[in-house]
């Protein structure tokens, strides 16, 4: 939540916020909870029109960033999505767009990127596997050479928007090392099992590959050379996730402080009780720190800074831990109303808790920080 935005960026934030407020208010989010997909594909086309999914797409393919720093721009949308716990596969589509823009073949780029940009196509990243997820070292899905192409065998889990995806970016292992493939949904031997999550409108599913046959043209980037790509994809995913969580806690903190000023007990607004004021002060410290570290990570990734792998994991560790602490205390400060279905707090608690877990927990990334520091 940068304090210095260009005019373009300010306008983009405003447009995004107004669009969400009118087309995806919280009442709509509650309705979408009962749908299979958790979002509406017609609505997603409108999001595409606003430019949400074109930020990583090169201009030649109909996209373009506002500032030349596509992640910093995308973070603006992610923050607004968090503020309204909005639906839609913003994160996975942008991760795949960034991946294809960076390493896709000309054919892949020409075919897929424009359609991701408009919102007509949805793509997601199939990365995690049980056992040692969210880490390239834990990728065990096997891609075996077969004729001109490859055969994929194994199961990916916690794949965001799996049931709605038209394309899967699959991180697999060949003898040469990590290799990524772009796999259309519906390919023979690709079985999607839809799943639900604690979040009302976010779906994660598993994708099983039963010896699915892929042509050589499905490879994204170099065979055996995808480790750096996967790391960059994970960084982008973490950064957008942190930004979304930051948007969520910023909004929750805002309405909690408002509520405390309106709510009277013992003849005083509860905001006048020093014990509560001091907790609110600590929370402002955490919210502002979360904004600072989330922004810092996005800038470092866009700049390809050497410490980006560390900074984005520091952001995830900090934001993941503090966001849940903030949500818990904001529920407490609301009292009884805060644990009802009718109040919106639980929508935020759900989103923030899912974000804490997915793409690696704070504990996981703190361990990764130690490895990066060569401890």
């Amino acid at each position, binding site marked *: 939540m940068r304090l210095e935005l260009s005019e373009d960026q300010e306008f983009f934030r405003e447009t995004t916020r107004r669009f969400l407020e009118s087309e995806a208010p919280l009442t709509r989010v509650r309705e979408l909870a009962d749908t299979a997909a958790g979002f509406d594909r017609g609505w997603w086309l409108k999001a595409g029109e606003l430019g949400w999914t074109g930020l990583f797409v090169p201009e030649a393919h109909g996209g373009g960033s506002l500032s030349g720093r596509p992640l910093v721009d995308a973070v603006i949308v992610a923050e607004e999505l968090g503020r309204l716990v909005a639906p839609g596969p913003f994160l996975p589509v942008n991760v795949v767009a960034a991946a294809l823009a960076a390493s896709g073949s000309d054919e892949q780029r020409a075919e897929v990127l424009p359609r991701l940009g408009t919102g007509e196509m949805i793509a997601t990243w199939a990365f*995690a596997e*049980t*056992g*040692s*997820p969210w880490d390239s070292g834990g990728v065990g899905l096997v891609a075996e050479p077969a004729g001109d192409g490859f055969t994929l065998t194994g199961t990916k*889990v*916690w794949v965001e928007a799996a049931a709605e995806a038209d394309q899967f970016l699959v991180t697999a292992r060949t003898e040469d090392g990590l290799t990524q493939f772009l796999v259309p949904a519906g390919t023979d031997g690709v079985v999607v*099992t*839809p*799943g*639900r*999550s*604690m*979040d009302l409108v976010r779906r*994660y*599913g*598993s994708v099983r590959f039963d010896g699915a046959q892929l042509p050589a043209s499905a490879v994204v980037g170099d065979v055996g050379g995808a480790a750096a790509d996967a790391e960059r994809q994970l960084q982008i995913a973490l950064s957008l996730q942190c930004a979304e969580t930051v948007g969520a806690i910023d909004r929750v903190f805002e309405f909690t402080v408002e509520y405390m000023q309106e*709510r*009277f*007990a*013992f*003849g*005083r*607004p*509860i905001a*006048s*009780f020093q*014990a*509560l004021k001091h907790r609110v002060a600590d929370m402002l410290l955490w919210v502002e720190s979360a904004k600072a570290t989330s922004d810092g990570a996005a800038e470092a990734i866009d700049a390809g800074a050497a410490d980006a792998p560390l900074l984005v994991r520091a952001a995830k560790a900090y934001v993941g831990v503090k966001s*849940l602490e903030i949500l*818990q205390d904001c*529920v*407490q400060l609301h*009292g*009884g109303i*805060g*644990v*009802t*279905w*009718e*109040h919106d*707090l*639980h929508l935020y*608690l*759900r989103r923030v*808790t*899912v974000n*804490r*877990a*997915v793409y690696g*927990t*704070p*504990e*996981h990334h*703190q*361990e990764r920080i130690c490895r990066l520091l060569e401890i």
Partner: protein
Amino acid sequence: MGDEMESLDDFRARARTWLATNMTRRAGAVDAEDLMERSSQMQANLFDAGFAGIAFPREYGGAGLTLEHQEVFAQEAAPYEMPIAYVVSIGMLAPTLLDNGSEVLKKRHLPRMLRGEEVWIQLLSEPSGGSDMAGALTRATRDGDSWVLSGSKIWSSGAFTADYGMCLARTDWDAPKHRGLSMFAVPLQGTPGLTIEPIREANGNAEFCQEFFDDVVLPGENLIGSENAGWSVAQSLLLHERNAVAGVGYGVGLIGGDAEEGETTFGGPTVAELIRLARVRGVSDEGPIRQLIAEAYVQSIVSSQLGQRVMTGMRVGTYKFQWGSLPKLGLGVDVPRLAEIAVAVAGDEGVIWEGDADPAEPSLFLLGCRAVSISGGSNEIQRNIVSERLLGLPREPSFDRDLPFNEVVRNRGKFTGSSA
């Protein structure tokens, strides 16, 4: 039995024998719903054998023994299923009625309550009030020998099936807030003018209700305590509530289960369940996850030991009954922390599940965990009590204590930081 009170050892032996013959040992996870259904017969059996209302006088249906006997019974009963349906009615409302009710009310209701034939709940909180129970806006107006009740109460559990609610209402609007309240016994089934609505919680459950009173008429004898002395009745009720939640005082043993085994976690995972979650996820050998599980284990042990200590302190007279606030605060801090531990241990598995499966337990527990830290007197209220009443620190400056309540209501929104 003669006039001499049964010794603790004799009582323990008798309880042990009776329990072994008449009650069922718990095996594995408790099915709360099933247990609720069987509670009624279990409570009747307990009552008939003299193990319900152990510390209540005999003239009100109790066993005429002491809280020490009740503690002994709790120790012996820990391995058995207990009728959890009556924790509120017998652990909180019955002692409040015993402390404050008229002879007529006590003689009529207490035996039924102890036998489980009649269930009472509390009607204290209001939508506008939160922790400030003395700020009640529900109104009771005298009409000849009767009272007419109007307003709304919230956060009561089980109002759909309970027989009576103990309801705090304002009977004098010109008196300062604490001095214009009275407590009433309100029949809840088929009462004209009474509407009960469920409250849906964030985790999807509907344990709690809101009640709307639209000129509900109550007989004069339903007044509990004196007119305009309702606040002292409410304080007595709040004290018994804290103690029952914390499992001390009259509440000892009512919830059942063996806290040392981590079995009383207010719906959260036991240590065994945390271990299972870690194994499912394949992280049970990771040091940071093991620390979290050990933390939960330590906390469950310490929480149980603190409860025993406070109970002992009350028994030997070192601690006043107010000390129940300490274990209550402990639970209000530990249970939400346990929820955080559960989601951290479970990782993705705790927040994502297959399409048709039930929601992951850690996610549901996190959504519901703050009931413990908010209801029964929030953590903040307990911290006030602990610092002011247990430690004797200065009370919070009051801005509404001495004003006529009418004026307090008019003043809302005009807080300046100057006291009355």
